[in-house]
């Protein structure tokens, strides 16, 4: 059989295959360059960028859990200036497709980040992280603290960012909601080109010998294979009501995992903390998807999106 087409288009971004990496799990791309040619990825998604560098939370920041991990990094990142000067050149030289994930303290900060990244050629698409569970102080938060938990705020933030850029704009949402369709539709109404699902689930781990939380921030975000069923369900829910595509993620480790997300309705997927376990996990996912297409006689991988059989 002929080589299957793996090309997809994610809300205006042409990708040579449906696989990117999840923000925060692949650094700025170059870190994994010694394991494989990162330009083979459909896109490289970089760690959340903020206007100023951020030191992040105090350690310990990670804790292992059954088939997963908690993190409370707190968005430690180099900031947009260093990114543009020191990290971007590698990605551009390699000819990578770049999704820049952004984080701000207000709609205006997001807008400024978007504007600068577009103007200075820092990204081919933007993913606005409205759902980081680790930048608030667990001891003091009260009420739904994430923008992504309020459809109204998702819409406002999206509109503001939308107005600032013509790059493809993805809104990254949190699974810590009663109904993922509400913030997803709000992002669509606000002008997003796609939604990215899911960020980590809020979680907590305690060392019973010391009786202390395993993370200095007390709570963190749960990722890894453990959460995959939750993520697939949310993609399935959202994809059926949206007109814009879904970038699916959460626990993808193998090509089969990734294909579950496509069948549930995702147009593209991101490999997250699986890269920590297998630095070339994303590459293996791409290869496995290609093999799956050949084995199942699928000429164009886009045919898999939403192709769940209910009968």
């Amino acid at each position, binding site marked *: 059989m002929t080589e299957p087409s793996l090309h997809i288009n994610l809300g205006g971004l042409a990708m040579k295959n449906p696989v990117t990496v999840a923000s925060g799990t692949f650094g700025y791309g170059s870190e994994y360059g010694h394991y494989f040619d990162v330009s083979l990825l459909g896109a490289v998604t970089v760690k959340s960028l903020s206007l100023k560098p951020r030191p992040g939370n105090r350690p310990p920041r990670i804790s292992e859990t059954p088939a997963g991990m908690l993190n409370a990094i707190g968005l430690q990142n*180099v900031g947009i200036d260093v990114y543009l000067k020191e990290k971007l050149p590698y990605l551009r030289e390699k000819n990578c497709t770049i999704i820049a994930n952004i984080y701000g303290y207000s709609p205006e900060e997001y807008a400024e980040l978007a504007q600068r990244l577009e103007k200075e050629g820092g990204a081919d698409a933007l993913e606005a992280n409205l759902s980081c569970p680790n930048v608030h102080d667990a001891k003091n938060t009260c009420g739904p603290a994430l923008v992504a938990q309020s459809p109204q705020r998702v819409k406002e933030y999206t509109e503001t960012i939308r107005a600032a850029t013509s790059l493809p704009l993805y809104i990254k949402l949190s699974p810590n909601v009663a109904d993922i369709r509400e913030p997803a539709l709000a992002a669509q109404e606000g002008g997003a080109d796609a939604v990215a699902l899911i960020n980590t689930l809020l979680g907590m781990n305690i060392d019973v010998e010391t009786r202390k939380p395993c993370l200095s921030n007390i709570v963190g975000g749960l990722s890894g294979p453990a959460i995959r069923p939750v993520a697939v369900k949310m993609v399935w829910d959202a994809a059926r009501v949206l007109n814009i595509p879904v970038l699916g993620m959460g626990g993808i480790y193998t090509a089969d995992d990734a294909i579950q997300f496509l069948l549930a309705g995702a147009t593209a997927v991101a490999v997250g903390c699986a890269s*920590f376990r297998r630095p070339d996990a994303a590459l293996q996912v791409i290869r496995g998807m290609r093999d799956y297409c050949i084995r199942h006689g699928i000429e164009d991988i886009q045919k898999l999106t939403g192709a769940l059989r209910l009968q």
Partner: protein
Amino acid sequence: MIHLLDCKVLSNDEVAPGHRRLVLDGKAIAEDTCAGQFCMLESSPGLQPFLRRPMSIERFGGDSFSVLYKIVGEGTRLLGRIQPGDTVNVQGPLGNGFSIPKEFKRYILVGGGIGIAPLPGLAQALIRETGTPPEVILAARSRDILLCQEDFTRMNCPVFLVTDDGSAGMHGFASNALEARKPDKNTLVYTCGPMIMMGAVHRICMENGSRCQASLEANMACGDGVCMGCVVETTLQEEFRRMVRVCHEGPVFDSRDIRWNTGTPAHD
């Protein structure tokens, strides 16, 4: 150069109660490593545990290298069940090892418990670089888990033993033994072991004007500078260097750069 290799297991023998040495066939890693670097091992091919395990590279040379490990939890328990002939996926060598500045007159190695693992390799490198076997303080809870003693005596290092329970050598802690050795400003101390021990060693060094390189531990997810999970707090002023990655800027640090009295280090 960092490698990702399926390594054949040459042996996996018990060396002391609850401690084993895993010898792996892996030329690329053996060739590219230097004392104090580490690797990330898959403790099982399955999803549980999900993360790799960081382990110091103990011996290396020719086509093989070893890790010396203590069985503490699920990952190391699974490592303990690996058989010769099995395959283990290894990522390494990672991090920055010990550095050997030549301006010191005395070099003292202080290893506590399983923290001894990278020190025989360091002793060898010191002999190569300085011509003199370093002094070695070996600390452990009790005599049966004092590891690698013969490695050091074979290299003619003066070895000083210290145990928590007095079952071998001096009765007390590594820092007491170091104090007794009277380090001075011409002394460079290298230390690896529990955080609490290294903090005490650091203080003795500061009190005596010695320098100290400490090899830290931290929970790690990627082991390779990506996840930002393994940071420790430094005493450095620049905001940007307030948190450094044990896996990338370390695991070996100048002890003065580390904030030793901080709240909850992962394992103290």
